[in-house]
């Protein structure tokens, strides 16, 4: 089970109303390499992975939900006072027609989130390697969004989230090393 702390993992500040940036940022909300996919991937894989790395998947999967909440806050702030006309100009006309200002789990192109974005192969090596790849892809996505953003306050939060991808990637690489170690070698008499 989880306890909830009523605060964000890192403060989110947005300087200006910018629905165009929200359209790009939604990639990290409901995209293939976004925070929702990451959280659900890790919290599902953990059941069938060797005991030594279950805790890591639980912890990182939980943190991904904290990141999801930050992204949601950013998207909300970027769009909350936009007019219908501004939404349309930002390329969010189709989103507005369907959802008004509500957030939705879709990617920057408007494609809804699907479970086929994540995998659970059951092979510990394959699953951990997928997790490493997912962290690197999320890191890259943050970079491309930062490249398109001219909001220094928002970028501060995005740079924090990018750094967490770096740390998570290393933790998963360490998990791969643990899985490769010989210490659980079967004793044959």
């Amino acid at each position, binding site marked *: 089970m989880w306890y909830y702390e009523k605060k964000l993992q890192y403060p989110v500040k947005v300087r200006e109303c910018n629905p165009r940036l929200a359209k790009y940022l939604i990639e990290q909300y409901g995209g293939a390499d976004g925070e929702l996919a990451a959280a659900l991937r890790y919290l599902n894989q953990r059941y069938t992975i*060797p005991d*030594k790395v279950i805790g890591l998947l639980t912890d990182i999967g939980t943190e991904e939900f904290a990141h999801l909440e930050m992204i949601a806050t950013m998207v909300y702030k970027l769009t909350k006072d936009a007019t219908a006309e501004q939404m349309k100009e930002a390329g969010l006309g189709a989103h507005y027609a369907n959802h008004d200002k509500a957030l939705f789990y879709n990617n920057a192109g408007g494609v809804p989130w699907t479970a086929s974005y994540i995998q659970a192969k059951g092979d510990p090596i394959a699953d951990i390697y997928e997790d490493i790849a997912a962290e690197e892809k999320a890191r890259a996505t943050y970079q491309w969004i930062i490249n398109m953003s001219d909001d220094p306050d928002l970028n501060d939060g995005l740079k924090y989230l990018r750094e967490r991808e770096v740390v998570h990637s290393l933790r998963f690489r360490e998990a791969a090393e643990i*899985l490769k170690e010989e210490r659980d070698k*079967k004793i044959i008499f």
Partner: protein
Amino acid sequence: MFTQRKYYYPYISPFDPCRPIEVKSYETPPQLYIGFQPPSLPQYESPKEALYRGTLWPALYSPYRNPYERGDEQQ
């Protein structure tokens, strides 16, 4: 030298509905340990064997058998 298969002992609850499999295994094939393949690794004696194995180099050969037939669950 590394092993190509690792074993672990998952937690077993007194309330597990199925008869527990006490030892579980997963594969750790050789490519995980090689990094960048060094030059001049020994090769199989005959091209026929290399074709059969799927690799020129014994260092890369990974045998695989059904774990349920290997009898992994018996300690």
